[in-house]
């Protein structure tokens, strides 16, 4: 079949990509700026003979996801910042139970109810994991509609491969914008007889399976934790993804993800047009973070500018990676304000001036 590009809105594309990836069931609750994810699913999932259910709340949604995942279904939920906060308890249960699930967060301005404009204030929530206990989610961040599609498919594959929670994060701008994009081929859902061996399918003619997040003995629970940590270590070793632009000869490095990541592509072009050799690292997996690559580049550049739509969250991971090898400056906007190239270019000049004068360049 010849695939052609269509003009896709980010939110609808996320839902359609999940359908192509073989999602069997979606449970969710509407919230701006991602309600179009539900809208698209509500039309398309019944057409494909799959399950769409609008739950009574985000707490219910994530627990329905937990249940369906235990039964071996490919399953997901979607929300925006305040809704994802409500899901954290369930996500922690899913992480401990080691069942695959995908959660998407189309971030809006916070904290609190905040507003519905694009923001990246949930980096910590996604990367450090806001649920209780020791775990990480694999965190994927898209900066275009096509990348959102590709990462949704990857999200399901990684969730299955590692029996883990994958969180896909984007902001309202990616959710609302339209770009030409191509869908992958439509995968059928797994037939019931091909359910994975650990799934809770009724134990007919076999020993029963147990999926739980409750281990009352301290030593038992420590063993579970050690197993989880070993798995996370494997993920960290194998699944780091990022994209680089013009880093080969860069004197200065930008680090930015999602919408800001693509805006910084324009900054690289404009800075180079003005004679400043700037490169960009755009992390695609926020966890695991491309620390090794950033550390390597930090040894070669004069300074790093991290740009985010928050008060400075990913910059902590950049500084951990850099370990003082070069100055790291931060520029951020909050509340739904999107930093544009005109805002970011002067920050590069400040970094340059700070490096040249040997002054403290952290902001």
């Amino acid at each position, binding site marked *: 079949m010849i695939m052609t*590009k269509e*003009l896709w809105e980010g939110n609808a594309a996320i839902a359609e990509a999940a359908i192509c990836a073989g999602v069997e069931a979606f449970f969710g609750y509407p919230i*701006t*700026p991602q309600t179009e994810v539900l809208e698209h699913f509500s039309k398309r999932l019944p057409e494909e003979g799959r399950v769409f259910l609008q739950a009574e709340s985000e707490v219910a949604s994530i627990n329905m996801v937990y249940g369906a995942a235990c039964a071996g279904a490919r399953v997901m939920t979607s929300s925006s910042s305040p809704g994802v906060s409500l899901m954290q308890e369930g996500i922690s249960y899913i992480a401990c139970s080691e069942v695959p699930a995908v959660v998407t967060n189309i971030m809006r301005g916070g904290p609190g109810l905040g*507003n*519905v*404009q694009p923001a990246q204030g949930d980096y910590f929530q996604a990367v450090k994991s806001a649920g209780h206990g020791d775990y990480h989610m694999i965190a994927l961040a898209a900066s275009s509609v096509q990348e959102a599609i590709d990462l949704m498919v990857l999200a399901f594959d990684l969730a299955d491969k590692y029996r883990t929670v994958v969180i896909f994060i984007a902001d*309202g*701008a990616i959710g*609302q*914008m*339209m*770009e*030409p994009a191509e869908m992958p081929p439509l995968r059928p859902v797994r037939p019931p007889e091909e359910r994975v061996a650990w799934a809770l399918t009724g134990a007919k003619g076999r020993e029963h399976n147990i999926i739980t997040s409750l281990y009352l003995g301290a030593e038992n629970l420590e063993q579970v934790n050690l197993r989880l940590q070993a798995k996370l270590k494997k993920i960290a070793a194998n699944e780091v993804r990022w994209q680089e632009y013009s880093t080969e000869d860069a004197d200065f490095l930008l680090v930015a993800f999602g*919408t800001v990541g*693509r*805006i*910084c*592509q*324009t*900054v*690289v*072009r404009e800075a180079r047009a003005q004679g400043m050799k700037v490169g960009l690292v755009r992390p695609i997996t926020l966890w695991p973070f491309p620390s090794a690559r950033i550390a390597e580049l930090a040894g070669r550049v004069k300074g790093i500018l991290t740009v985010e739509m928050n008060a400075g969250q990913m910059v902590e991971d950049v500084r951990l990676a850099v370990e003082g090898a070069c100055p790291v400056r931060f520029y951020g906007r909050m509340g739904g304000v*999107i930093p*544009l*190239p*005109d805002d970011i270019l002067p920050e590069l000049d400040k970094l340059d001036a700070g490096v040249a004068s040997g002054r403290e360049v952290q902001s």
Partner: protein
Amino acid sequence: MQEEIIISGFGGQGTLFAGQLLAYAAMDSGHHVTWIPSYGPEMRGGKARCTVIVSDEEIGAPLVRRPSAAIVLNIPSMEAFEPTIKPGGTLVVNSSLVPQRSERDDIRVIYAPATDIAEELGNARMANVICLAALVEATGVVTLDEVKQALEDHLPARHRKLLGLNKEAMDKGAALAKAGGGG
């Protein structure tokens, strides 16, 4: 080539659809394109705008502070965007609803009495495609035929009976731009 186009007006004037039509035409003619709306707690009669970027190379920032072109369908949009257009850029003004003239001498301004023309043709809601045609004619970002083809391919089924009328409206908009746009 890169054109950054803002289309702005009241909710209900078809600003978002005009932008989508341009985005379809740009995509179908092989360009990179992004379309991004203003969104939030909006309503019919409130403000509505979108930014469309058409480029020969991969598009970074999908938003701009200084567009190379704009369509303003009402007075608040004129006030907001007329001062922001890059020198050498293009402004299409719906002069049926915007009485003021631009004071800029470094941009090309086309005054299109689009709502009046659309009403004469039988449907005031076609003011958007009249202005879009004028913009396309003036900037050459895509061709008028590419926009017409996009309309044919992407007009929602419930509006298909208006296809011929819309094309007629576009011809009038393009003619205005060709004639110099003094309307």
